[in-house]
């Protein structure tokens, strides 16, 4: 398509999964009403989950999942070398995700427990950015297809793409929800980056912070809020640790 005097063409995409549930990749096939238009934007060069054709000339790599085994590091580096733009796709890729919960447990113990005795290689769950450089992060567990559409349209049309900087509460209020704190529950909405349209509070369950911290959050005030409402701070920590998005804040607290 020609618009404003420059050509807008399809982008060549590869989609790759590492340690994860593949739920984020699945989103690429969701939102069926816009799916044909969405697929028309992209030229799928490498996407094992939906196509047996594999080419190595993709420009944009969507990388899903975290890294938990050494062979994954090599595979990731190869992808990085090929891709012009590497996108950490989903919370596991952006922060380590729920997989990181095992990092707190001695690895040998975990292996012994599940595979009783058999040697299984595994390493602490690591986010993509700790291994190779990442150009964009699309957080979410799973990612919101609407946001993915917006960002891919941005890439196709060569516009800059950005995530909301404000917290989930904004969207939660716009959906006219009752605040979970009013119901006596703990919610990470005030510190979590918006963009999911507050799905969890809208379903009346707490935001667990899958999208990571919003910009410049007021963490001390949030802790104070939890204390003021007489909610358990150990539960707060369990929630903040759920997707590993708040590792920096929890770390800070320990020291």
């Amino acid at each position, binding site marked *: *398509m*020609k*618009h*404003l*005097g420059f050509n*807008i063409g399809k982008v060549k995409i590869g989609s790759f999964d590492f340690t994860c549930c593949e739920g984020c990749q699945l989103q690429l096939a969701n939102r069926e009403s*816009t799916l044909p*238009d*969405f697929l*028309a*934007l992209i030229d799928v060069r490498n996407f094992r989950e939906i196509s047996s054709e594999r080419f190595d000339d993709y420009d944009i790599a969507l990388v899903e999942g975290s890294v938990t085994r050494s062979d994954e590091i090599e595979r990731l580096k190869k992808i990085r070398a090929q891709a012009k733009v590497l996108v950490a796709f989903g919370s596991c890729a952006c922060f380590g995700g729920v997989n990181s919960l095992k990092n707190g447990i001695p690895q040998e113990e975990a292996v012994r427990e599940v595979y009783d005795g058999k040697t299984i290689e595994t390493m602490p769950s690591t986010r993509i950015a700790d291994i190779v450089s990442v150009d964009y992060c699309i957080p979410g567990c799973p990612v919101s297809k609407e946001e993915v*559409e*917006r960002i891919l*349209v*941005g890439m*196709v*049309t060569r*516009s800059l793409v950005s995530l909301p*900087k*404000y*917290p989930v*509460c*904004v969207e939660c*209020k*716009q959906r*006219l929800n*009752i*605040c979970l*704190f*009013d*119901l*006596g529950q703990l919610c990470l*909405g*005030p*510190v979590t980056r918006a963009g999911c349209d507050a799905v969890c509070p809208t379903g009346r369950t707490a935001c667990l912070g899958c999208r990571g911290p*919003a*910009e*410049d*959050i*007021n963490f*001390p*005030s*949030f802790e*104070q*809020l939890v204390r*003021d409402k007489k909610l358990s701070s150990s539960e707060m920590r369990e929630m903040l640790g759920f997707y590993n998005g708040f590792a920096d804040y929890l770390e800070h607290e320990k020291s």
Partner: protein
Amino acid sequence: MEKPMIYKVISKPEFKSFIDTLVKSNTAYGPKAVDTDRLGNPVYQFMHVQGADEIAFDYTVTHSSAKHLLLPFRDELSHYSFRDGDWDQEVRYDAPPIVLIGLRPCDINAINILDDVMLHGPYPSPYYLARRKNTFIIGMDHLPLADCFCKSMNRHTVNHGFNLFCSDIGDRYYLAINSANAFSFLKEFRIEDPSYEDNCNLIERRKSIKNSFATTVEVTGLPVFLDIEFDSPIWQKWGDKCLSCGSCAMVCPTCYCYSVEERFDIDLKGSTRQNHLYSCNLVDFAQVAGGHNFRPRNGDRLKYRYYHHYRGFAANDNQQICVGCNRCGRACLADINPKDVINDLRLERESCMTCVLPSPDKT
């Protein structure tokens, strides 16, 4: 000039059937119990209603205001259709008629303030005008909650901005009819001229409302105070609490600041320009390209919300736009509310006065 008003009374069952008819023939919104909070109290919101029995006529207050029905959280401003290298722009002010039932005087006052902002001044907003003209408003009076301070803001009564206003006088409603439409609808129902007793009851009702306000916020001279206190450390003190979550602005009936963004349609055949409600408390409200943020600290941003509400902006005749419903105070998780902030400010100022110090230097 105030338009003439017609006064009538209607029995409660008759009123209900009037509302029911109206609701069933139109797209209507009214207060609805949507949940119960942890203390077991019902929680109300203005929601789409399909029958009078869904409406909680004796509700206390809704969590969010009805603002979004006139200024949607997200609104399409224009649409472009592209054709090889060129485009067409389409602008529509589509606004199907709606009925808004059960607005409190302060809520109606809030709409009147929005009218001032959106329709007066050099650039009236056609989008707002279309919605406003297509909105039929039925107001209702109410006893204040303990933390309401609309009386302090002088917004606890209203005499324009609605089509019909109902006061509860026991077994019937005292109606103030302010539009031809409303009157012609009502003519189909059993309405009567108010009797002497009805008038007395109305006055009693007004009195008892007026006397029930438990919270007062001293706002006289506040604009000047705010100017003087612009650099007060008080702002950072409250700012340190603020989560910059924007909840206050989302529920507020008069917060209207917005953001505009443009999006390609997914088929790339066009694009839409949308505005969406923003809040001056959000971190990048005043951030410009290149990353400079004119209000980098929570305190700076919080101050602006107060500045806007209690001092007013020059282009809106410097009027205070807060109506005193305290929705923001109830919504705020950090326990920040206008009463405490303003009192704090006054307190600080007063102690300042005694030692005759000028306000601190600009930093």
